[in-house]
């Protein structure tokens, strides 16, 4: 068994027949095994011992008895040993709730850094045929709407809602969304929760191995009950040497859309 640190969450491996790898990324333990005409994988989330730095262990794991619940088998016709993991953003919006609500003072504009869990696409072959997508951390479901009749199902995440980027403050397995909050009204804007349109954002990787999403600008306009949301087309300026990892799951025609204030902030 040979354990080493994973330099990036976007990696391609060669796994020969009867070999396996084990990936420990945050709370996720993922074991992938290659057999003749078959790939099998098991995974589980172990919150008791999270791995701050993603690691890979090579060896032969074919005893999945301890994590049998999530065993998945995939049959295929050739013996290509190539296996790739590609990080992706969530397929729904992420509703981030700061651990303590805060007010944005009237006329002010700040950068807020919200982190959200990523999904790993496990793909095989040259064509990157998708086997399965697994979230590094399975976030809780939540409902985002003005009432229990109209709204959308989203993922909930607790966030520190950091106002500055400190070294080591973000996990390697979470994507950081820089949100530019602009309060053009004459009153304070209470921020209890914020909805990030994760499915419409690009995912980038910077030179420090941090994952970033497209930047989002949320403008609360004066004398209006609406907030305009703008998704930045370019990589965020905070991400040094950003490289595009994955395109949005939902291609939006417009990168600016207007929502009612209650639909975005709590």
């Amino acid at each position: 068994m040979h354990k080493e640190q994973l330099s990036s969450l976007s990696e391609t491996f060669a796994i020969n027949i009867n070999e396996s790898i084990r990936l420990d990324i945050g709370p996720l333990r993922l074991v992938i095994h290659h057999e003749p005409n078959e790939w099998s994988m098991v995974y589980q989330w172990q919150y008791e011992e999270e791995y701050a730095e993603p690691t890979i262990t090579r060896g032969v794991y074919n005893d999945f008895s301890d994590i049998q619940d999530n065993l998945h088998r995939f049959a295929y016709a050739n013996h290509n040993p190539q296996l790739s993991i590609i990080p992706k953003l969530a397929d729904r919006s992420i509703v981030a709730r700061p651990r303590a609500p805060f007010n944005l003072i009237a006329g002010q504009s700040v950068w807020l850094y919200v982190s959200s869990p990523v999904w790993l696409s496990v793909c095989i072959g040259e064509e990157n045929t998708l086997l399965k997508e697994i979230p590094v951390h399975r976030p809780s479901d939540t409902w985002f709407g003005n009432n229990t009749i109209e709204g959308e199902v989203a993922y909930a995440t607790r966030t520190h809602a950091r106002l500055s980027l400190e070294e080591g403050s973000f996990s390697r397995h979470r994507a950081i969304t820089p949100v530019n909050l602009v309060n053009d009204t004459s009153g304070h804007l209470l921020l209890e929760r914020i909805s990030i349109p994760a499915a419409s954002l690009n995912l980038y990787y910077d030179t420090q191995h941090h994952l970033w999403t497209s930047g989002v600008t949320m403008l609360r306009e004066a004398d209006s009950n609406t907030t305009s949301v703008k998704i930045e087309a370019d990589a965020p300026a905070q991400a040094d040497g950003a490289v595009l990892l994955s395109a949005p799951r939902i291609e939006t025609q417009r990168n600016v859309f207007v929502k009612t204030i209650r639909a975005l902030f709590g």
Partner: protein
Amino acid sequence: MLEQIQTNLQDVISVNMVDIFRAAVIFIIGLASASVISRVVHKVASSHWTVHQAYITKQAVYWLIFSVFTIMTLRHLGFDLSVLMGAAGILTVAIGFASQTSASNVISGLFLLGEKPFSVGDVIQVDGTEGEVISIDLLSAKIRTFDNLFVRIPNETLLKTKVTTNTRYPIRRFNVMMGVAYKEDITHVIKVLMKVADENPICLDEPKPVFIHRGFGESSVDFQFSVWCTRANFLELRNSIQIGIQQAFDSENIEIPFPHRTIYTGAETAPMPVSIHHQQESGN
């Protein structure tokens, strides 16, 4: 005598073979057009309306075209339609009396069509029957129950009784009704319950879980703990949240009491003697 009858018949129905042929052609064209046009209408209606509405529209179009062509056929055959209409009127009254229930169901079906309390694919509860609606027809709705039984419910019943549509809204609430022993710290119980809900990924973060104190029962402090989930996850949440609560209570030593009975033997009698025996483990 025979000649007389023949003349009368010829007066009433003055037809010849050519007319019969023409009438047959009209009737066949009518059948074909009713079938084709109603199918086209159904296809167009399906993309805009519900399955039920599209079906009723298709039926209406079919029978309208069929009736028009039938009348044309009869006229071509020389039938006097005013006589036929009179007879039809009397027949309608007779049939009406005979088929009150069916007519009531058809009219109820039309009201249901306008009101749209549920559609095909919804899960509904009617008179203790719960299941998925597989079709809504002119006389009745058909339901497949979860134990895979086919239930036919007349439209009239659906209009008269309380119908609950489980799948109307995207999220649902599940109420856990339970109680804990009087010795338990209720604030600690609330914290444990909230933690169980927080750790269950299919339990919605918002709307928040609700704790409702339901009073002091005979043997326990009774409460309701309500959690929300998407309607697709309802059954899974129903199991996982209750299993989670029981496991959390076990690990926190929170007692879910069995019913208690205090037996009193009366004022005149001495208390019942109770003795507790500790069984010592062998080898100590």
